[in-house]
């Protein structure tokens, strides 16, 4: 359920020397919301999160926090598994989430350890509390990072490309976990991602960032039309769907045609308007969609 805004951005702009990362951005982040921030690389997704966190000071405009302290913002950065050679256990890392609440000098006590343990339990790592970080898989380390963020008892949780490199099943499990935690803990969640499948299934709102500006802020159903996609990703991009769920963006360019007769395709083109899974036929070179690197990398 959405409430009053926790964070408001008014005409926020960020410039790095000769590069503009954000331009005159206006955005309210309501309490209890789940928002996906999507867009092409360089669109400003990560910069937006870092501005909210206070890691980047805006060159212009204002960021206002309403009944929200900085320590109440949890953050899971890109590649947040941490240095796997660092001599810490899963519990040690989760416990670090308590440090800002303790303030300088004070040591974590029994209650802090219990909360860190509880958060590891919540993310499904109750049996790995004492394991060294390097002994955990990449996905498990990602969950440790979430447990660390949750241990700080945040009101707002920011996740930056949290599943890059994970397989489809791991992504689904991850976002299901985030959705459950959001409901259970009453969190506001913002996920910056190029994983389009995240948007309709796990979030209430979508903010589309293009060239540092907010192109669109709407509910997922309002985002899926050709005009928006062309403006967000460029006119040559097409969406690949898994069933009814948009999965990723691709750009058509000529490749050698391969006979695929009889093998069903799972993609459909927004431009062509085909909605059903259909048997594939050899695709003419000029129409054959192939994956674009531009939507798979980091922001």
């Amino acid at each position, binding site marked *: 359920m959405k409430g009053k805004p926790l964070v408001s951005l008014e005409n926020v702009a960020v410039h790095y020397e000769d590069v503009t990362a954000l331009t005159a951005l206006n955005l309210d982040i309501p309490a209890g919301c789940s928002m996906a921030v999507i867009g092409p690389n360089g669109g400003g997704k990560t910069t937006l999160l870092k501005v909210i966190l206070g*890691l980047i000071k805006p060159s212009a405009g204002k960021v206002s926090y309403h009944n929200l302290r900085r320590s109440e913002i949890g953050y899971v950065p890109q590649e947040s598994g941490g240095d796997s050679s660092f001599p810490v256990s899963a519990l040690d890392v989760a416990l670090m989430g308590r440090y800002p609440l303790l303030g*300088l000098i004070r040591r974590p006590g029994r209650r802090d350890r219990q909360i860190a343990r509880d958060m590891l339990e919540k993310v499904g790592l109750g049996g790995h509390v004492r394991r060294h970080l390097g002994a955990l898989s990449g996905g498990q380390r990602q969950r440790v990072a979430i447990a660390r963020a949750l241990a700080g008892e945040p009101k707002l949780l920011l996740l930056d490309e949290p599943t890059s490199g994970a397989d489809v099943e791991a992504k689904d499990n991850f976002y299901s976990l985030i959705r459950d935690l959001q409901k259970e803990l009453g969190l506001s969640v913002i996920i910056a991602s190029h994983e389009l499948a995240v948007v309709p299934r796990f979030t209430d709102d979508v903010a589309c960032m293009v060239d540092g500006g907010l192109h669109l802020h709407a509910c997922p159903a309002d985002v899926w039309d050709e005009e928006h996609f062309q403006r967000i990703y460029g006119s040559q991009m097409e969406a690949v769907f898994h069933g009814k769920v948009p999965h990723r963006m691709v750009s058509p360019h000529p490749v050698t045609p391969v006979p695929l007769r009889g093998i069903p395709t799972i993609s459909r083109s927004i431009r062509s308007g085909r909605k059903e899974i259909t048997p594939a036929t050899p695709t003419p070179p000029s129409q054959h969609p192939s994956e674009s690197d531009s939507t798979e990398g980091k922001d």
Partner: protein
Amino acid sequence: MFESAFMVRALIAGVFVSILLSMLGFFVVLRKMSFIGVGIAHAAFGGVALGQLLGVPVFASAAVFSLAAGLGIGAVTRRGKIKEDTAIGIFFAAGMALGVLFLALKPGYTADIMSYLFGSILAVSAADLWIIGIVALVILTLLTLFFKEFLATSFDAELARASGIPETFLFYLLLGMLSVGIVVSIKIVGIVLVSALLVLPAATARQWSRRYGVILALSLILGLAYTVGGLMLSYWLDIPSGAAIVILGVLVFLLSIVFSSMRAGRLAKRT
């Protein structure tokens, strides 16, 4: 050995220095910035030579040079345009060049410069002992008070900053403590070898454990053992104390690597 007042002073100073460098070295190794100790120590050479030229306390002039180098390396690196190794190389060379220049300007013989370069058990005066003791006490207190913050910033600086920990302040505080800690250790270990004593205990301890608490405890024990053992070897064999301490540390480090590889091999066979 304990009848000699200079040896007792050297041992007491050695205990302070070993605890100080082992604890600083723990964070230096965790942050993978081991080479910075070399840059700071060699930059201190300029201060040592200037102190001798002007006749001012060497600790003070060396501390100014070390602090300038430590904080300068940090600032230059944080601006992001110059890599840490490049910055260290520049400050290292500048400190040494100034040191050579100041020594050339000083008339007469400068015999005790060797004790600053390689360490000497004869070099520690009662006044030095007070300075070493007070500096060690202040730095160890700060490291203990901010231990969890230093640990979090060493693990992931950006994440620590995002959670409101004053990461930039702690980064420069660590560099400042490292600079002063190295300066007070120079008389025992020497400019050339102090960075080795900074890194060896923690690097050796990491071969034995993957838990930071155990690594820290082992670092402190190993640092003490290297320093006290090296000072005794220096006394008995009449060799520079810095060389004796570091050779002992390197031997233990090499043995640790061998045993740690053998242990890893046995574990791999079991699984």
